[in-house]
């Protein structure tokens, strides 16, 4: 029931997204026909291309066409890569997702313990360390961190592989199961490819992790501080429960709700930050795809990208709501 109701509330926002992206891409300056006519086109050649693209028809007609195509699961064809948008998004989405998830996992693994440690000893060196790391992480733009990491670990030290996308030039992709190279290569029992894919992932994932460390560590610290100072913790302490049990079972479980909310938010803006990281590491993800399409006024991929992202957010929010229910029984009861 909860699931259905939550899904129903998402419908208007998806309809809104469809209309807004359609109008926005048309309102952007730039003439795709002129762009694609090439450097030596005549006005007549531009008009021919405009007609081929259907851009000479009225906006409502174009919109109806677009809806019809959507209903058939057709997101149109990208002009800059020449491929169907749906196929491209499906092959590129796992690349972005693998990178973002790994970055997020890396970030959680570092940020949560760091936040807890900082909250247990406020004012101690570990707390200051936490503060420095988070301030540095949040104030460095991702493309800068990315380029810096490439410069140090690839160019100067030569220990990281060349920033050439998901695999080095002489490895070939594992057989397609999930599109996640790490999982696919393990399924195929292909350790060299697993190693190659992991090596390519380390720097971009670290870039994303550095960027997302700050909000997670800070919110963990703040909510742990609140939980540790609350009355039930004092009662638990007075009852002589072990420190371990107090911190991890009573305090942390109560502190984790805001951390999950932040995690959801961080995940969504990581998908955004991805655009720049993908550019730096030549990562074949959805972000770089959308930006390139935007520069070329290539409508179809931009619309497809925004729509996919909107759907992803809806699913993500749904997932977070469900996790809430697991962590906090009150949420279930209210529903």
């Amino acid at each position, binding site marked *: 029931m909860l699931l259905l109701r939550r899904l129903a509330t998402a419908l208007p926002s998806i309809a809104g997204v469809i209309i807004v992206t359609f109008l926005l891409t048309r309102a952007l300056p730039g003439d795709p026909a002129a762009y694609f006519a090439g450097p030596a086109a005549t006005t007549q050649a531009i008009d021919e291309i405009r007609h081929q693209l259907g851009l000479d028809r009225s906006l409502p007609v174009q919109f109806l066409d677009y809806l019809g195509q959507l209903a058939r699961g057709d997101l149109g064809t990208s002009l800059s890569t020449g491929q169907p948008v749906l196929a491209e998004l499906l092959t590129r989405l796992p690349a972005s997702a693998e990178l973002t998830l790994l970055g997020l996992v890396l970030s959680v693994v570092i940020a949560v313990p760091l936040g807890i440690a900082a909250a247990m000893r406020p004012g101690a060196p570990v707390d200051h360390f936490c503060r420095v790391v988070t301030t540095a992480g949040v104030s460095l733009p991702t493309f800068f961190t990315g*380029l810096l990491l490439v410069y140090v670990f690839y160019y100067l030290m030569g220990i990281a592989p060349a920033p050439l996308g998901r695999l080095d030039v002489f490895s070939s992709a594992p057989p397609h199961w999930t599109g996640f190279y790490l999982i696919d290569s393990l399924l195929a029992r292909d350790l060299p490819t697993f190693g190659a894919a992991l090596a390519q992932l380390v720097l971009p994932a670290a870039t994303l992790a550095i960027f997302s460390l700050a909000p997670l560590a800070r919110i963990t610290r703040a909510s742990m501080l609140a939980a540790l100072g609350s009355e039930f913790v004092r009662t638990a302490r007075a009852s002589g429960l072990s420190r371990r049990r107090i911190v991890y079972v009573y305090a942390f479980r109560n502190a984790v709700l805001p951390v999950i909310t932040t995690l959801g938010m961080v995940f969504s803006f990581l998908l955004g930050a991805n655009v720049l990281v993908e550019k*730096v590491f030549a990562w074949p993800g959805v972000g770089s795809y959308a930006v390139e399409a935007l520069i070329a006024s290539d409508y179809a991929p931009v619309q497809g990208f925004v729509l996919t992202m909107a759907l992803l957010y809806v699913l993500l929010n749904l997932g977070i709501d469900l996790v809430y229910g697991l962590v906090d029984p009150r949420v279930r009861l209210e529903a």
Partner: protein
Amino acid sequence: MRRREFLKRSTAAAGTIAAAYVIPARPARGQARKDTLLTLSESGPNNLDVMGVGTNRPGYEASWNTHDRLVTFGVKKDPNGHDHYDYTKIEPELAESWDVGDMSATFKLRRNATFHDGAPVTAKDVKWSFDRAVTVGGFPTFQMAAGSLQKPEQFVAVDDHTFRVDFVRKDKLTLPDLGVPVPIVINSQLAKKHATDKDPWAMEWLKNNEAGGGAFRIEKWTPGQELVYQRFDEWKSGSLPKLQRVIWRMVPSAGNRRALIERGDADVSFDLPPKDVAELAHEKKLAVIGTPIENALNYIGMNVKIAPFDKVKVRQAVAYAIPYQKIMDAVMFGRGKPMFGGPAEVSAPIWPQPSPYVTDLAKAKQLLAEAGLPNGFETTLSFDLGFAVTNEPLCVLVQESLAQIGIKVTLNKIPGANWRAEFTKKTLPFIANAFGGWLNFPEYFFFWTYHGQNAIFNTMSYQNPEMDKLIDAARFETDPKKYKEEVEGFVSIAFADVPRIPIFQPSLEVAMQKNVTGYRYWFHRQLDYRQLAKT
């Protein structure tokens, strides 16, 4: 005990993983590396078919290397000793010989040439391909027409290995136009299998599939990521290329492209920004070749229909106030060929050539006063953000310099996708822009950019009947002496009236490892892998 055992086991396991990772990978890698070329560029093809709708320049490269044309161009050495295609020498490619008659040309095709699928190449394939080029519309049709190749009736398959082109008029560009990237020979039998009623020329299928008979075939194409070529060992239209495989990767970040080539992981990096080129050339670890792009010019244009640029003295004043040398030093880092400070009299029928203008603010001020604007005026200088690396600092320098003679300039940055639409309207008073023509003839450049027909590249809306007469005459001139007079005539007018101020001739820059040989500059400004080799 247990912990120790676990540690021991996991170290051993890690050892095996590492061994498994290292041992099979290394030798194969060394082998593959030797006869494989890894080349980098910012963006890749959007279409494998040069005749497709909106095929971009990297797409021409894919098509060029995988298809044959009837003829190609010879090679010469440029002033720096590098290979440079020679537009005066037409050489055989798919056609082993030809006869140019009065109103037609007859080509003999190689009898042993085959397409990549093994089918023999016949005159029917040539006819189908050329019919396609003049019929599909858009850029390919336009490019064919530039050589007076206009309708299917002009192309005749006499027998399997004889092909004739009938002329609609005598045009010296007809034969060279058969060597540009558009008139490729496509495997018509294969393509027709994928044609439909709605799409008789198989545009959809050829977008993602190649049906050629050129020196390379496409092994794998992942749009926006990489393109892998494999040599076609049965190629007969020239000597077999030395490279077996070419991997072309798209790396959007210029910094990373530079790191990859400097570390030796990539063999060739193509079309670099001037600053990187200047630094790489200085370090001397790599072979860096910059070739002035033929018949191309970066310029400042003034719209003669918009006041005060309608006054010739104002235009001359601006031409004397451009900080030419500063632009060459601070924007171009010495790359590119200066197109200013030339002799007062035009004495050679070539283009581009240096204009007589130099930076002379006193003279500029005086001209401005003579034009009745001693206190200057206000205007807007527009440029394409797509080329902001050079455009932005260039325009800032111009703005600074013009302020000294009282001209207040506001900069107007126009996004790349919008640039063409904007300048096509011809409402921008003052722009920084570039133009280049494939066919290396001065009158070809002037036909598009100065002629009174007012093509979209005549961004200055310049119209002068006297100049038109000279351009039209030079286009079909057969007498070399008269031709020289005509070209010098219209170049002189262009300098005197100065609707566009030449600044420099841009360079095509490529950086390579020192073991890469055989780089050749081509007018289409893309790589030709057939001549490249690794030693």
